[in-house]
């Protein structure tokens, strides 16, 4: 039964992706576009040359981290809708440290990355605390915290970090994750060393969840709070720890954008959507660290490749959003796929 479950956990996302792409092809056909042309443009847009490969990796990096942020909290039964806000404060804190401090790279860069993670952790701590001590639902708090993060960071950029400008100066090169070597390899794409951090973070999550006592307790709380309490675990502490670590992952995603991709922070006229995409990534990745990496890569490929579709095949980019939505729909309705598979099996017997 358990091996069956594992197989299902692997098969369902794959089938969902396949069905999503298939449905996307049908929609393209119905709206008068050539799906083969559309998908080959998508492929070229994501892997066509060194530049697009670099950009695909860059786009995947923060998605891995926000995916981890959502997946980690979900392991303890918490819905972290606040990855978005955690990304923004992480971004702000990392850039702030990058701008304000002068230090050699070996101190400056880790400090800036850490600042991002800490800020994100703090943004996860508040809903964790409220949930643990007062039982306020984390979904509501995290959604509110998103708006608080957005508006506060805009105000700080405007009044503290700059004199009423729309973006800050570039961070000191000693805090930058950007790599001229990697950029040179990929025709000046914005690829940076952050993807190593993201993969390392995935390994940490796997290790924490699967190989440590903390991880065991976090999972136990996720399965059944009352049973965990009965067996002597501190449920409140675990909820807070889970949200703080989840927030830390999302804060790192913000630091990637701030220290790697942009090298500054700009006034945001809306959410970055990295956090919200993280929810989908976690769902598709079945809340598993390595699943999340693969799901983030898929999203990165789809989103990067989408840019080529209008110019390469005349297909509107919105179609990629529809395909992503359909994939999520099929993952969420995994029950139907499971039922269909079981049905097959029964008939076979």
């Amino acid at each position, binding site marked *: 039964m358990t091996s069956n479950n594992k197989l299902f956990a692997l098969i369902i996302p794959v089938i969902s992706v396949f069905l999503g792409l298939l449905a996307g092809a049908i929609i393209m056909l119905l709206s008068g576009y050539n799906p083969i042309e559309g998908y080959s443009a998508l492929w070229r847009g994501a892997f066509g040359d060194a530049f697009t490969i670099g950009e695909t990796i860059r786009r995947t990096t923060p998605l891995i981290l926000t995916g981890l942020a959502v997946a980690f909290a979900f392991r303890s039964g918490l819905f972290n809708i606040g990855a978005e806000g955690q990304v923004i404060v992480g971004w702000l804190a990392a850039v702030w440290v990058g701008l304000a401090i002068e230090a050699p790279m070996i101190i400056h860069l880790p400090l800036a990355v850490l600042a991002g993670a800490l800020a994100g952790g703090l943004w996860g701590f508040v809903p964790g605390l409220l949930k643990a001590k007062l039982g306020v639902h984390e979904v509501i708090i995290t959604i509110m915290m998103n708006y608080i993060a957005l508006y506060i960071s805009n105000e700080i950029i405007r009044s503290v970090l700059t004199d009423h400008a729309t973006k800050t100066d570039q961070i000191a090169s000693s805090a930058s994750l950007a790599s001229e070597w990697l950029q040179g390899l990929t025709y000046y794409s914005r690829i940076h060393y952050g993807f190593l951090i993201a993969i390392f973070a995935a390994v940490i999550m796997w290790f924490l969840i699967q190989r440590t006592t903390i991880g065991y307790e976090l999972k136990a709380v996720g399965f059944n709070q009352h049973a965990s309490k009965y067996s002597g675990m501190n449920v409140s502490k675990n909820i807070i720890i889970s949200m703080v670590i989840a927030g830390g992952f999302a804060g790192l995603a913000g630091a990637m954008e701030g220290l790697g991709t942009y090298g500054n922070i700009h006034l945001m006229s809306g959410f970055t959507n990295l956090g919200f995409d993280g929810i989908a990534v976690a769902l598709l990745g079945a809340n598993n660290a390595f699943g999340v990496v693969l799901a983030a890569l898929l999203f990165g490929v789809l989103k990067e490749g989408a*840019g080529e579709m209008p*110019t390469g095949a005349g297909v509107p980019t919105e179609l990629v959003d529809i395909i992503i939505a359909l994939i999520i729909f099929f993952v969420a309705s995994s029950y139907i796929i499971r039922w269909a598979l079981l049905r097959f099996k029964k008939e076979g017997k």
Partner: protein
Amino acid sequence: MRNRKFILFALLLTIGLVLAACGGGDNNENANNNNNDASGDNGNNEETTDFSAAMVTDIGGVDDKSFNQSAWEGLKAWGEDNGLSQGNGFDYAQSDAPEDYVPNITRLVRDNYDLIFGIGFELKEDIQDAAEKNENTYFGLVDDLVDSPNAVSITFKEHQGSFLVGVAAALKTETNKLGFVGGVDSPLINKFEAGFIAGAKSVNPDITVNVQYAESFGDSSKGKMIAADMYNNDIDVIYHASGGTGNGVFNEARDLKNAEPDRAIWVIGVDRDQHEEGEIGDHNVTLTSMVKRVDVAVQDVTKRAQDGDFPGGEQLEYGLEENGIAVATTNEEAMTDDIISAVEEWKEKILNGDVEVPSTRDELKAFEEAL
């Protein structure tokens, strides 16, 4: 049991076949594509021009009913004058998020466009970078300044146009209370704000202007909320400089007008003539619009580049003199002759240099003290 395995096998085979077919198709299609492209290009060279131009939108997109759309209309007009078609001589790349700017610009450079426009101040750094890395391509940036011998900056004197619609609003208001809804609080939008307030107060110093920023160019529900609040507090004319957020302002004004057709409430549009946005039944709540002719500027620059006269390294500023800024008079019922003649009068004063329109909050303060 055997049956089950068979089904699985069949399924795998089908998927394999489908994938193989897709793969094969890809190559063929690609080959066809390339052939088409090649022959298309050849055809072009014979018939028309081999100059090509493209633009990268900001997150508003080409259908923003605002300056992206206007820029695209200008580019399209240029292309059609030269017998080109979209994707074949001119094109646009839509950006859904700020992270799309660099890939979009790079893609257009790779596709060998001769001139690439970035629409909006958000693309400033990315256009600057691209211009430095690709010396053989021309670049243009709308709404901010770039500094490179192969790039041109296109800015507008929005404060002048905002001054004139401020004059119109001051003459139209019955409550002496005006509203200004801005997108994101930034130097660019402050230009609109300063010009509008200066214009209104030049006509009547007792007028008060309530200034609100939505912190977004795409949040129409926020725009609607701010507008509802303003109209509730006796404000009867709102000038919006907020892109898509402004759709909410129009929405609220139309709702109110629909409920009470006799109530005098007005919206002033921005960037394009937003007359259509204000239509409700037999009425129209759009008093006028501050029209920014991004299309004229884009078309003009493209034409000059095509003729080998690209104004590289220059900072072009389009204002009233260059016909880059205008005040719409489409709503004839609302824009009475008195208002139009007053607007013309002030326009003359600006052109003569009698009035120096403030473009920042500091300049506005000095301007108000001098009144």
